């Protein structure tokens, strides 16, 4: 086990991650991550507002991703031998589901963006948002669908 994997395994099974195992919290985190991705996209579209606006958006977005990883117990980051069969099945199903949804999302987003005749920089912001959401889609889908964990008793 590498140092990174060892630290991650410890954190995703630690007491802080235990507090992030309720469904409502996970869903709120999914929405916050989507908003964070949109903010990063908007920040890229309006670079004249300054570098720090983009830094603030990136910090919020990264924080959401870290919390998402903890709430999912790192099933997308850890190696198979550190996961059990349920966690592996959740991860694999999320990848399968996300293929279709990402395709639909990209087509819808491209159609809307093309219809709006946005300036080039705004189109870049939309592309950044699309890339971030597509990359995170399996995690977002898992976090949205995963059942409540009602304690360890």
């Amino acid at each position, binding site marked *: 086990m590498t140092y990174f994997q060892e630290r991650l395994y410890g954190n995703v099974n630690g007491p802080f991650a235990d507090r992030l195992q309720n469904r409502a919290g996970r869903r709120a985190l999914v929405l916050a991550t989507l908003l964070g991705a949109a903010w990063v996209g908007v920040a890229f579209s309006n670079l004249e507002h300054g570098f720090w606006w983009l830094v603030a958006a990136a910090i919020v977005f990264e924080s959401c991703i870290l919390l998402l990883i903890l709430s999912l117990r790192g099933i997308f980051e850890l190696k198979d031998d550190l996961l*059990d069969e349920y966690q592996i099945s959740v991860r694999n199903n999320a990848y399968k589901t996300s293929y279709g949804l990402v395709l639909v999302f990209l087509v819808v987003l491209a159609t809307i963006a093309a219809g709006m005749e946005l300036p080039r920089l705004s189109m870049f912001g939309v592309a950044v948002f699309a890339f971030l959401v597509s990359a995170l889609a399996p995690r977002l889908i898992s976090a949205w669908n995963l059942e409540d*964990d009602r304690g360890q008793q």
Partner: protein
Amino acid sequence: MGNNKEIAFHNRLKLLRAERSISRKQLAAAVGVHPQTIGYIERRQYNLSLALAMRLASYFGLTLDAVFSPKPFEPLANDILTQ
């Protein structure tokens, strides 16, 4: 998100744990899964593999059909009363 949308097996895991005063964490460590996974199995939100089912049954020293069943289990009190 359970991996299988079809009918999940009924099981006596919670009863067996309570009977032997074993926590979910202890059982999970004994069979090599995460404690959350035991919870999902107990609540019938996940259809486990045969290998894990056998590990669980063997941990309790019981046969597979004594722990898992496709049909709901009869209450144990019925067995005692009919003896």
